[in-house]
């Protein structure tokens, strides 16, 4: 229900408005980072942007883990199935 796009924090904009510039493949916009914890994001961090606000900091380790799982899933699951099939036979 809510379009959220990953963007990279380019710079924090000084001032009371809690703003930062994000880059989405070359498209830049000032967004509000006030919904994140104080000092939670720095330039180079990736955030999820929704209606001009950073909603969440993207966890790069978790992102890699999900992909690794997707890649590894095939093999692990095939092995498991084979084991299951064998145990059924005996």
């Amino acid at each position, binding site marked *: *229900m*809510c*379009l959220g*796009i990953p*963007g990279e924090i380019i710079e924090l904009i000084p001032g009371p408005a809690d703003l930062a510039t994000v880059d*989405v*493949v*070359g*498209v*830049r*916009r*000032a967004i509000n980072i006030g919904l994140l914890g104080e000092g939670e994001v720095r330039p180079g961090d990736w955030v999820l*942007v*929704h*209606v*001009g606000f950073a909603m969440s900091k993207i966890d790069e380790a978790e992102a890699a883990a999900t992909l690794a799982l997707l890649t590894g899933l095939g093999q692990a699951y095939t092995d498991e199935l084979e084991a299951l099939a064998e145990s059924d036979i005996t």
Partner: protein
Amino acid sequence: MTVNGAAHPSREEQVLARIERARRRRPKVREERITLAHGAGGKATRALVEAVFVDAFRNPALEPLADGAVLDVKGGRVVFTTDSFVVNPLFFPGGNIGDLAVNGTVNDLAVCGARPLHLSAGFILEEGFPVAELRRIAESMAEAAALAGVQVVTGDTKVVQRGKGDGCYVTTSGIGVLEREITLGEPTVRPGDVVIVSGPIGEHGITVMVARGELDIEADLASDTAAVHDLVATLLDAVPVRVMRDATRGGVATVLNEIAQAAGLTVVVDEAAVPVRPVVTGACELLGLDPLYVACEGRFVAVVDGEYADAAVDALRGHTLGEGAAVVGVVEEDPAGLVLLRTAFGGTRIVDMLVGDPLPRIC
């Protein structure tokens, strides 16, 4: 599967058939007032044009609703077209309303196969509009005309009261000659043909949207506005072409739908093959837009016989304006009148005509 295995169609299939019948019915204008959707180039525009203008002006030259009308005159065939420009802002990265107005009309003539010759220019100016800006617009028009090898030979100027216009509107009409012994048009399209776009799509529409400043986004973007007559000539010299369309308002998706409907065939687009610059993809993701529906001003769609696909793309890529040309799809027989997209993810979906304006969405 067993449920649907019977010879008669399933209920879902019956519903889908009913929808297709409804889609083929003559469009109606239901609104009591003109909305912005009527100018967006999609279904509403089509409905308005058919229900109001075609109804009033009905004649064989108008009815194909091509980018221009092909007319038989003594000694040859001419192509005649007209286009109005109301772009806001008037000046944007890559161009302004002036060169846009020249290129737009030149391109409409070019994709009809004609060599563009003469243009008219009508200006509707708002009281208070700076003369310096008008001069800049006129200078851009002159430059664009020189580049396209056309002359602006007649014109008109009207001024409306302050608040009754948006600074400056321009209407250009153009005449070109059809010198080649060719007949272009949707009826010539056959299953097995390929669909080519002449370059990366969506740059003009996104540039203008960003330049308006309302969305507060910045991007290294420039309009793709350019006269494509020379690129078209290069293509026509290289291979036989079935039909070409200028992919302006409503974007490539709208043009493909018009081709599919007029030809009574299907266009199957390969999403991964559609050239889109990364920054345009980024802006579209951020705003929830689909680049297939975003306007171009210097790109066209061409349909050629499948056996000429490589030759056509090679010819286009040999020209500076066609470096990004690519085969994006094929023409198939069934389901008639639809555009399907094979998604990069490996699925299939419909690409329908644009409904209303492409509005940025948050949901």
